[in-house]
């Protein structure tokens, strides 16, 4: 047994332990902290499996943005927790346990009875890599071979933001999401919010650009852009834009909208919906990705900001 195997066994054991702890612990806040640590360690597992694209996404979404969303929810629930503390009845507990056990058994069965070797399309993807002149097979799958899934994923993001906004009270509709943050203008948070975004924006654009040939892409880059924006909002350096603004709505639909247009264009001039003309594949994919990184950054930032709370003055 070499040192890498020992490391992997310890990593897997810690992730399992954290998973159990996240479920078992009573306070919502502690469960959230456990979940964030769990997400970061799962990202390490993806790195060990050579799935760096997935690791980046897991760290950004599972550990970062998801953690912030859950922390916000935990903070809101803290006041409500004592009132809902009465224990659920024995029937509820038993049926919840049975459902969970059934789901776990079904998942375990699916994993244990996987055919060996597992069915894979990886060789097909690699042999068709020249079709798009992109060297990263993951980007090829996301943007060309299974572009439909990626487009619908962006539509889901759009639906999520509509869902959050629909929680707005009537008098705040069209207004600014979330509270107006105030921080000490000479304080450390404002200092960080001035120092970090230039670095973060460069890293985000680099990760986006390198996604053509190396792990990275619009989603990971967009998540970093969103976090820089949220940092500036939390330090009070800028306010969230009113959700009624036309330009904001335009940015939110730019990614899926352009994707849809290019897809319909493929139906018009090419073979099928979302079929790129081979000569134009790279510029078309790049154009869609530029629109998508803006949409993703805006959507993730606004998801964190929450429902509109304040009307426009």
């Amino acid at each position: 047994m070499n040192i890498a195997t020992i490391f992997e066994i310890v990593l897997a054991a810690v992730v399992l332990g954290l998973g159990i702890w996240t479920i078992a612990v009573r306070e919502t806040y502690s469960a959230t902290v456990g979940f964030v640590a769990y997400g970061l360690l799962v990202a390490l597992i993806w790195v060990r499996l050579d799935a760096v694209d997935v690791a980046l996404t897991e760290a950004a979404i599972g550990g970062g943005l998801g953690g912030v969303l859950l922390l916000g929810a935990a903070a809101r629930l803290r006041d409500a927790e004592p009132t809902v503390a009465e224990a659920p009845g024995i029937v509820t507990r038993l049926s919840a346990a049975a459902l969970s056990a059934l789901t776990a058994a079904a998942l375990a069965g699916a994993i244990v009875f996987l055919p060996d070797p597992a069915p894979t399309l990886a060789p097909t993807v690699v042999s068709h890599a020249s079709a798009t002149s992109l060297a990263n097979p993951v980007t090829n799958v996301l943007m060309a071979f299974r572009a439909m899934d990626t487009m619908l994923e962006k539509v889901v993001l759009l639906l999520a933001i509509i869902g959050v906004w629909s929680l707005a009270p009537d008098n705040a509709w069209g207004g600014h999401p979330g509270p107006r943050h105030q921080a000490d203008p000479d304080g450390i948070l404002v200092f960080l919010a001035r120092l970090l975004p230039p670095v973060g924006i460069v890293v985000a654009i680099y990760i986006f650009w390198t996604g053509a040939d190396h792990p990275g892409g619009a989603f990971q880059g967009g998540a970093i852009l969103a976090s820089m924006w949220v940092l500036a909002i939390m330090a009070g350096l800028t306010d969230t834009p009113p959700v009624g603004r036309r330009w904001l709505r335009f940015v939110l639909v730019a990614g899926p909208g352009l994707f849809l247009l290019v897809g319909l264009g493929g139906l018009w001039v090419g073979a099928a919906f979302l079929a790129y003309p081979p000569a134009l594949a790279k510029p078309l994919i790049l154009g869609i990705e530029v629109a998508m990184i803006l949409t993703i950054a805006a959507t993730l930032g606004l998801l964190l900001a929450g429902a509109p709370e304040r009307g426009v003055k």
Partner: protein
Amino acid sequence: MSLARDMMTIAAVSAGVFFFLAGTAGLLRFPDTLTRLHALTKADNLGLGLVVLGLLPQAGSLRGGLKLVSIWLLVLLAGATVSQLIARTARQGETAR
């Protein structure tokens, strides 16, 4: 030459691991928030700094080395900011009590 590089790596990374161990022990054993923060920042700043210093001879290229150093600098920045924010909140909680 390669032996000297490996020796430096082993020495610096071991020293870094020691600071992480000491920081973790302090985080678990120290009595209040401010002293626990003190222990944690030692692990973050010195521990990671020494690990990065130890990995530098193995980086292979100037680019890789610069990436390692910038990771350390970013962690320093984030760690310093977060511990300031936690400490400030802890102090406000104390004076409010």
